[in-house]
């Protein structure tokens, strides 16, 4: 369940990065549709956070420790919304580029989360 969500968030984050990167390439600021996309990605990360905490509560262990696992989950939750607010303050292509960078950061965090959770 958690691994499936991690993969889903990674794919969604990369799609968001490509989409906002394309907007930046075309010299456009973020628009309503982009914010809906960010909301979808953030919703997935929120689901991941809840599932992760439920699994911990059930007694399952994260390979690299609970503190690191929860910190990464919270960091992943913040990445895209903060970049989104910054793009509201910067109504140019650079706002879009910031959201794209935020989505890439999220994808990297997901890869780390996978390592942190999985025994291996």
């Amino acid at each position, binding site marked *: 369940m958690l691994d499936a969500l991690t993969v889903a968030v990674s794919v969604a984050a990369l799609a968001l990065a490509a989409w906002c990167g394309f907007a930046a390439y075309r010299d456009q600021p973020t628009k309503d549709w982009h914010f809906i996309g960010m909301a979808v990605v953030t919703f997935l990360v929120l689901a991941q956070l809840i599932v992760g905490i439920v699994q911990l509560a059930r007694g399952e262990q994260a390979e690299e420790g609970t503190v690191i696992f929860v910190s990464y989950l919270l960091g992943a939750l913040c990445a895209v919304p903060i970049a989104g607010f*910054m793009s509201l*303050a910067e109504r140019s292509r650079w706002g879009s580029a910031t959201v794209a*960078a935020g989505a890439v950061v999220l994808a990297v965090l997901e890869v780390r989360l996978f390592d942190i959770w999985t025994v291996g």
Partner: protein
Amino acid sequence: MAETRERAAADGGRTRLVKGPGMLLVWLYGVMSVGAVSRSVYQVSTEFDRAPLAYALSAVAAVVYVFITYTLVRGGEAARRAALVCCAAELAGVLIVGTWTLVEPSAFPDATVWSDFGYGYVFIPVLLPLTGIWWLRRSRAATA
């Protein structure tokens, strides 16, 4: 962000550094700050004895990132100069620590943020100061 803008506007002449590419830069520095601070707080508090040198260097990197983020958000000529000095120090740090980790790996039982020129962070640590220096120099050219 809106608050920053109003404050900058109230100060009149203070150069805004968070605009255009500066917004992207401040985001990346913010991410590196959060990453480096949380990493070094965790490592120094739980396992400092394992690799004191590496974790101390990570903590130094964290302080540099936080300071640069702050100066970028604050804006103004003095902050711009301070950020420029710190970017140069950061670049020097990445190059020195990067070379050091390659020449003498035995001194580092665990990685620092700046190990192998920031390999573990997609080379962002070495690219960021270069971009920062470019942006800060350009900001002066724009206001002069």
